[in-house]
Every structure is written in structure tokens, then in C-alpha cells.
């Protein structure tokens, strides 16, 4: 239990701690050994020193004794002989004994020995005093001292002192010997202990090292080895066993590896499931043949759809080249061509005939996609094939039907056109001869005249029919050729009213037009007139005698709406639906109806062809009568300005001098445009056109124009030269230049005599402005 908890504790230490422990254990043991050895050697040396000191003390004690003994002998010799040389030991003792005694005092530490020493010192001083007394006595008594009692006493006393001293010295030496023996014993003890300690420490070091190795092995090496084995398992994709891992770095690494292994397995599982699902989806697709090719075009996978479409089963087709699906001798080339396209563009789509296993053909839509790995290396192709034979058949049928319809339509148009033509030709003879009859038989009977008149009327009616049938045929064939331009609705209505006035007058109908200037509409002027005349004619014909037709115009929902309201009997609600159908004739009103029955249907076709609408509403005010309306798109363009009212032009014609404009321009279209503009804007103007420079100069002389419009690019001469001639000959004549060359337009023509320069295509408002300005300044 405890061992387990310790091993857990150890396992949970960080690697740094473990390393420290592993290194520190032997190191501490080593340091302990060194300290122990040092201590033992210190103790040993101190014991040795004690022994040496004891020996020295013994020597010193012996020396004191020896010195005193010699001094005593010397004194005795001197006493006996009186020779001073015997005194030498005495003097030496006098000098040395205090020194030695003093040295002993410093070295002795034992109490007992110290007691002996103090007694020895006292005895030594007593001895030396005794000797000194003897010497003193000798010197006083002279040579004969032996017989002197004082000396004898002194000698005896000295002898006693010396004996006591000897006893003390012996006692002390005895003590020192004891001490020596004791210290010697302690020294031996210390040396033995040192040996034991050294041995123990060596053992401890050994054990410690083994322990460290064990720790290293159990705490690190074995676990790292286990990790390594786990890593191998991980690399093989095996699951890692759950293990107690500890919380140090290795343990954490093991935990992470286990987690990584789990994650890896989960991903692998998901991937496998995904792939499986994907494979099942692809294989299960029945409507699309989906399969893969290797880079050379050999089939490497196959799905149900491919099997269904192409008839090959998976095991039959795998490994075969996909050119098998292409019919014809050049199957290989065509298939490889498709692959090459896919390699080049990444993807290629193709439609064409493909062949099934049973040899039947089907029309396929094929998409080939090049498959590349991350490095961009071609790994093969995916091919998606659809069998669109049915669709193609349907398309073909549709195409055929459309083509047939077109052909039928064209044939119909052609037929109608031919018919009209073929009808016109005999009509020419009929009407022509009828007219001749009418002329030549002016005086014949009434009945004859009526008959001729009937022929003419019927012939003209037939002619009207033919014209309208031809128009309808053209519209249906899309060959009407509309010339859409901005048209002023006010001017067009006024013109139509003017043309219808005779018919209205003969029927006693009043026309009220409430249409004035309005934004221009985008329309073909001629066709718009046709519609206006038709609606007006209807409104007159289906009116009551003495009735009224009112025309109104206004902008409704961004379109120009024109309404024709009459005072006739209106339209039977049941017939409204058929109004715009061909050959629908309404009950006659005031006038005898001699219409073709095609008018409204033609009007509708024309208005619709111009992007407008046409319709019928009962009168808004509830009174009897019909209201026909049409709408046309407005245009933002400003059209050609409204021509001056014809009467005003006529009235001023005679008063104003006739304006002559000389146009030197070789382009017929431009000349026509300028003439048209001039005709509308300056009705009094006479435009003379010269296509060549020489003729232009000629006409300038003859016609004396008020203004010259000069194109700079003429076939015979340079416009530059013409300008020079004109400005030289007629300095006051305004010359407006026309050029298609934008660069040329930048030249300073005004300084060369030109009044203004206009670039082509000619902008009508600026042409008008330039000409008006030039004329104003010229006439001033």
C-alpha cells in the first residue's frame, strides 16, 4: 500500500525532479563519505598529537630532573673542589629549568599532572635555592666547606628536596604514562572507527548508486520504452491500451498519445464511413453513369448508372479502355482527344453518340474531369455520362416542328406574296380596261356606266384586300422592315385628319382633334399613318350621319395613348372578342361599309410590331359609340422638329426670298438626310446638291446660294481647296464644313474662311443651329 503510494508519488514527479533525485542520491552519499573520512582523520590526528604531547611532557620532566641532578652534583663538586667549572651544570639548570617548567605549564592539561607539576616546580625552586645557599656559604667560608655544618645541613636538605623532587617526577611520569596509555588506546579506537565508517560509506554509495539506477530505470527508461512501443502501435494504426501513466511529462505524453490514437481511430472510422457512404451513393446513382479512368483511359471504377446506361457490368468493364464506348473506327483517337482536352482544360464536355454493350447507340452527354493530386500530378479522370437520347429526340422533334412551322410560315408568306402579285397583275388589266371603257364610253347608256363603275369598284376593293393581305403576310413572316424613328404624334394625327376630311365631309361627320404637341413616339411613320387612317376611317364609317369623331392623346404608364371615340352604335359586347380578327365586319353604320375587313387586324399587327398595343373600350361616358385606342412607346430622342404648318409655309413662300442652300457632298445618304432636314426645317429652302467639287463651284456661281454645306472629302478635289476658292470668290458666303474625320475637325477652319465645322454622323440639332446662325449673320 505504502510502496504503491510512493511509486505513484515518484511517478507523478516531474522529470526534472526525477533527474535531480537520480543524480543527487550518489552525490550526497559521496559527500557524506568525504565528511566522515575528514572527521575520522581529524580525530586521529588529535589523538596522535595528545600522545606526542604526553611524550614531550615526560621528556621535559626528565630534563628538569636531570638538570637539577646534574646541578646538584656540580654544586657538590664545586663545594669540594672549588673549581668553577663544576658550576656549569648549576648555571645551566638556573637558566633552563624555569624555561622548561614554564613550557610544561603550557602543555599540561591534566589536573593530576598539573598538581604534580606545581609541586615539582616548587621543589625545583627549593632545590635551586638550596644550591644557591650552599654556594653562598662556600663563598663565605672558603674552601673548606665539608666540615662546615651549614653546608652539611644544606646538603642534607638538598638531598631531601631532590628525593622529593624525584618522587614527584616519578609520580608525574607515572601519571603521564597512564595518560599516554589512555590516549594511545583512544587513537586506536578512532582508527578502528574510521575503518568501519569508510566501509559503511562504501556500502551506502554502492546501494545508493543501485537505487539511483533503479529509480532511473523504473521512473524513466521503462516508461519511455513503453511509449516507444505505443508509438509503433500508433504508427500501425492500432488502438493503444489504457494505462496508468502518471502525471509527469512522460505520463502526459502517453496520455496525449492515447488521445491521439483515439482521435485517429475516430477519424479513420469517419473517413471509412464517409467513403463507404460516398461509394454507395455513387454506385447507387442510376441516372448517371459515373466512373473513373486511370491516366491512360482504362476503366477503374463503375457504378449502377453506368451499367444501366452502357450495359456492361462492373466485372466485365473494369480494366478495359473507355474507347469501347465510342462507336466508329476512330473511337480510340476521339476518346483520347477528349482526354487530352480534359488534361488541357481540366474539364471537357461532349455530346455525341456512344455505343452500348449490345451495340445499340445512345446520345450521350459526357463530362470528363481530370483528377489531380495535391502536387498537380494527373491521377486519372472522372467521367459522368448521361443518356439524353430521349431529350435529343424531343429536341430534334421540336427542332423539326419548328423548322416545319418556319417553313410553313415562310411558304405561307411566300404564297400570299405570290398570290397578291398574281392577283395584281390581272387586276391591272381589269382596272385598266375598265378605265378605258369609262373614258371611251362616256356617252353610253346609264346601265353600261353603272356596270363599268361596278367593275372598277370591285377591282379597287380587291386591290385594297390584296395590299392588306400582303402586309399581314409580311408581318407574320417578320419581314415588315419597320423604320422606327421618333415621330411627333401631334403632326401625324393632324396629317391623318387632313387626309380623312373629304370622307368625313361626305358623311357629315365632324372630327375634333384634341391632340397637340407631345413627346415623340418611336414608330415607323408610314405604318403609324396607316393605323391612324384606318382607325379614323372606321370611326367615320361606323358613325351616324352628322355624328362626331373625337381624338385624344396622352401619356399613360409611360406610353403614348391615342383614343378615337365615335358617336355610332358602338360594338356589340359579344363581338368585341372578334374585333381584331381578320374579315370581321361590323353592322354598317351611317356609311355603306366598303372596307376590306382586314383593317383592324392589320392595325393590330402593325401596332404590335412597333412595340405597342391596340384595343377597344365602350365609351367611358356611357353614351352610344365606340372607343378605339392604341398605345406606342415614347422615345427619349428628340425627333426632327415639327414641320411648319403647310399653310403657313405657303403663305410666307411668296413673301420671302427663296433660300438656296448649296450642298457639296458626294455621299448620297448624307445628302438625302440634309435635304430631308432642310425640307422640314426651312420649307422655303431650295437645296442644290453637287457631288463633285468642280460642279459645286460651278453651281455656286450660277445659283448664288445663301449658304454652302461643304464635305471635306470629295472625289475630285480636296475640300480644303474648295473652301479656299469659295472664300476667295465669295468672302461673305457662309460655308459650313462637314467632316467624318474627328482630327480634321480640330483644325482651325474658321481662320481659313469656314463659318462652322460639323462632324459626321451629323447631329441634326447642331446642323440646324449652325445653319440658322450662319444665315442670320449673313443676312444682317
Amino acid at each position: 500500500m505504502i510502496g504503491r503510494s510512493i511509486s505513484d508519488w515518484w511517478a507523478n514527479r516531474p522529470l526534472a525532479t526525477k533527474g535531480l533525485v537520480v543524480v543527487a542520491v550518489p552525490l550526497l552519499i559521496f559527500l557524506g563519505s568525504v565528511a566522515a573520512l575528514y572527521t575520522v582523520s581529524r580525530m586521529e590526528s588529535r589523538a596522535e598529537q595528545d600522545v606526542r604531547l604526553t611524550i614531550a611532557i615526560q621528556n621535559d620532566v626528565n630534563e628538569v630532573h636531570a638538570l637539577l641532578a646534574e646541578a646538584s652534583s656540580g654544586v657538590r663538586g664545586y663545594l669540594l673542589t672549588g673549581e668553577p667549572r663544576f658550576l656549569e651544570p648549576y648555571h645551566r639548570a638556573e637558566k633552563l629549568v624555569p624555561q622548561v617548567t614554564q613550557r610544561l605549564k603550557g602543555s599540561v592539561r591534566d589536573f593530576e599532572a598539573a598538581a604534580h607539576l606545581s609541586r615539582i616546580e616548587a621543589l625545583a625552586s627549593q632545590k635551586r635555592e638550596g644550591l644557591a645557599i650552599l654556594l653562598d656559604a662556600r663563598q663565605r667560608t672558603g674552601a673548606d666547606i665539608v666540615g662546615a655544618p651549614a653546608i652539611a645541613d644544606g646538603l642534607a636538605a638538598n638531598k631531601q628536596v631532590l628525593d622529593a623532587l624525584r618522587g614527584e617526577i616519578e609520580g608525574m611520569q607515572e601519571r603521564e604514562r597512564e595518560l599516554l596509555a589512555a590516549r594511545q588506546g583512544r587513537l586506536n579506537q578512532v582508527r578502528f572507527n574510521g575503518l568501519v565508517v569508510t566501509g559503511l560509506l562504501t556500502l551506502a554509495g554502492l546501494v545508493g548508486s543501485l537505487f539511483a539506477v533503479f529509480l532511473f530505470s523504473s521512473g524513466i527508461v521503462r516508461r519511455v520504452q513503453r511509449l516507444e512501443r505505443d508509438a509503433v502501435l500508433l504508427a500501425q494504426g492500432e488502438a493503444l491500451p489504457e494505462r496508468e501513466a502518471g502525471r509527469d511529462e512522460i505520463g502526459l505524453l502517453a496520455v496525449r498519445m492515447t488521445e491521439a490514437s483515439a482521435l485517429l481511430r475516430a477519424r479513420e472510422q469517419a473517413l471509412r464511413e464517409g467513403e463507404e457512404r460516398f461509394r454507395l451513393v455513387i454506385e447507387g446513382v442510376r441516372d448517371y453513369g459515373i466512373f473513373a479512368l486511370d491516366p491512360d483511359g482504362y476503366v477503374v471504377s463503375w457504378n449502377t448508372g453506368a451499367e444501366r446506361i452502357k450495359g456492361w457490368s462492373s466485372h466485365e468493364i473494369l480494366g478495359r479502355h473507355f474507347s469501347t464506348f465510342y462507336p466508329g473506327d476512330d473511337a480510340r483517337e476521339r476518346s483520347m482527344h477528349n482526354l487530352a482536352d480534359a488534361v488541357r482544360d481540366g474539364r471537357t464536355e461532349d455530346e455525341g453518340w456512344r455505343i452500348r454493350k449490345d451495340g445499340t447507340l445512345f446520345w450521350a452527354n459526357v463530362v470528363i474531369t481530370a483528377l489531380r493530386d495535391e502536387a498537380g500530378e494527373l491521377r486519372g479522370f472522372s467521367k459522368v455520362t448521361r443518356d439524353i437520347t430521349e431529350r435529343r429526340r424531343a429536341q430534334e422533334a421540336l427542332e423539326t416542328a419548328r423548322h416545319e412551322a418556319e417553313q410553313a410560315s415562310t411558304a405561307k408568306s411566300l404564297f400570299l406574296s405570290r398570290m397578291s402579285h398574281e392577283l395584281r397583275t390581272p387586276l391591272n388589266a381589269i382596272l385598266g380596261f375598265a378605265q378605258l371603257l369609262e373614258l371611251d364610253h362616256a356617252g353610253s347608256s346609264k346601265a353600261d356606266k353603272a356596270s363599268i363603275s361596278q367593275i372598277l369598284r370591285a377591282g379597287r376593293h380587291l386591290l385594297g384586300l390584296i395590299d392588306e393581305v400582303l402586309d399581314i403576310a409580311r408581318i407574320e413572316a417578320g419581314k415588315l422592315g419597320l423604320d422606327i424613328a421618333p415621330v411627333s404624334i401631334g403632326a401625324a394625327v393632324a396629317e391623318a385628319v387632313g387626309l380623312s376630311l373629304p370622307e368625313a365631309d361626305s358623311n357629315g361627320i365632324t372630327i375634333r382633334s384634341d391632340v397637340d404637341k407631345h413627346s415623340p413616339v418611336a414608330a415607323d411613320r408610314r405604318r403609324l399613318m396607316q393605323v391612324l387612317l384606318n382607325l379614323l376611317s372606321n370611326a367615320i364609317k361606323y358613325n351616324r350621319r352628322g355624328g362626331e369623331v373625337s381624338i385624344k392623346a396622352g401619356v399613360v404608364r409611360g406610353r403614348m395613348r391615342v383614343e378615337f371615340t365615335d358617336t355610332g352604335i358602338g360594338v356589340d359586347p359579344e363581338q368585341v372578342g372578334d374585333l381584331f380578327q381578320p374579315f370581321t365586319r361590323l353592322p354598317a353604320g351611317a356609311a355603306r361599309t366598303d372596307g376590306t375587313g382586314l383593317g383592324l387586324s392589320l392595325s393590330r399587327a402593325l401596332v404590335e410590331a412597333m412595340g405597342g398595343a391596340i384595343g377597344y373600350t365602350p365609351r367611358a361616358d356611357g353614351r352610344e359609340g365606340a372607343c378605339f385606342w392604341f398605345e406606342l412607346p415614347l422615345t427619349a430622342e428628340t425627333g426632327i422638329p415639327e414641320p411648319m404648318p403647310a399653310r403657313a409655309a405657303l403663305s410666307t413662300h411668296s413673301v420671302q426670298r427663296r433660300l438656296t442652300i448649296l450642298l457639296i457632298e458626294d455621299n448620297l445618304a448624307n445628302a438625302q438626310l440634309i435635304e430631308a432636314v432642310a425640307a422640314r426645317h426651312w420649307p422655303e429652302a431650295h437645296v442644290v446638291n453637287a457631288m463633285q467639287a468642280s460642279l459645286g463651284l460651278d453651281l455656286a456661281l450660277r445659283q448664288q446660294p445663301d449658304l454652302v454645306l461643304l464635305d471635306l472629302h470629295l472625289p475630285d478635289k480636296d475640300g480644303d481647296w474648295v473652301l479656299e476658292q469659295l472664300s476667295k470668290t465669295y468672302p461673305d458666303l457662309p460655308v459650313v464644313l462637314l467632316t467624318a474625320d474627328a482630327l480634321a475637325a480640330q483644325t482651325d477652319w474658321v481662320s481659313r474662311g469656314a463659318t462652322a465645322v460639323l462632324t459626321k454622323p451629323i447631329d441634326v440639332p447642331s446642323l440646324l443651329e449652325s445653319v440658322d446662325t450662319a444665315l442670320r449673320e449673313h443676312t444682317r
Partner: protein
Amino acid sequence: MIAPRSAANVRILAIDDEPANLALIKALLLREGYTHLETLTDPRQAAERHLAFAPDLVLLDLMMPSIDGYALLDSLGRLTGKDDLVPIMVLTADTSIEAKRRALALGARDIVTKPFDVFEFALRVANLIDLRLMFARAREVSQPG
């Protein structure tokens, strides 16, 4: 009578594949006093007859089988020298603007759509004859002898 006074000597060539129309034209022209008339229903002989007859006016139907009327118009126009003027009046049942423009561009002096009004027809013929005669007179003045 719209025809000019010198109409009696005027030579008119009329080409139309429809005999009834040709008869009408002939009747109208005779009524106007033109007597030197040549009518032709086969357009393939047109050039040959034009050269042989040397007309002062040509009346040409544009819509004929077996030949392109425009091509014929063009080739007849070329038969006349640059210093001469022989007007060609086109008769056509094609009322389209394109047809008119095309014919005029190819040198037709006038166009009448069929069926035509007899007065209008006579007037246009008279105008063209006037043009022809005035041109001839002008040429005589400028090139005496």
C-alpha cells in the same frame, strides 16, 4: 390626250409576260397617239429587240418568269450609250419600298405599280417622252451636224 405633239414618231418598246397587260398598255398608248409600238412577252428577246427597234422609251415589267427583272433592267440600261438617254419606266406589282429603290438605283426613270391608274400612266409616259425629246434636241444643238 396627254401625249406631246411630236408623239407620232416616238418609238416605245413594252415588255410584259402577261398578254392582257400588254394589250392594255398597247390600247392606252394607241389611245394617246403613240403609233410606233413594239410589244414583247418573252423577256429573253428584250436586248435583241431593243437594239433592233432603237426605242425612245422602254416600259418594263419587273416580275416575269424565266428572268430576273432587275438584271434585265440593268442590262437594258447599259445598251444605251453614255451620251444618250433612253428612259426606262418600270411596271411592277411589287409595292414594297425596297423594290422601288432597287429599280431606281438600277437606272429606272420612273416606276408605276400595278394596277395603275390610266391617267397617271399616260402622264408619266408623256413626261418621259418629253425628257427624251428635250435631251435629243439639246444634243442636236450642242453637236450640230
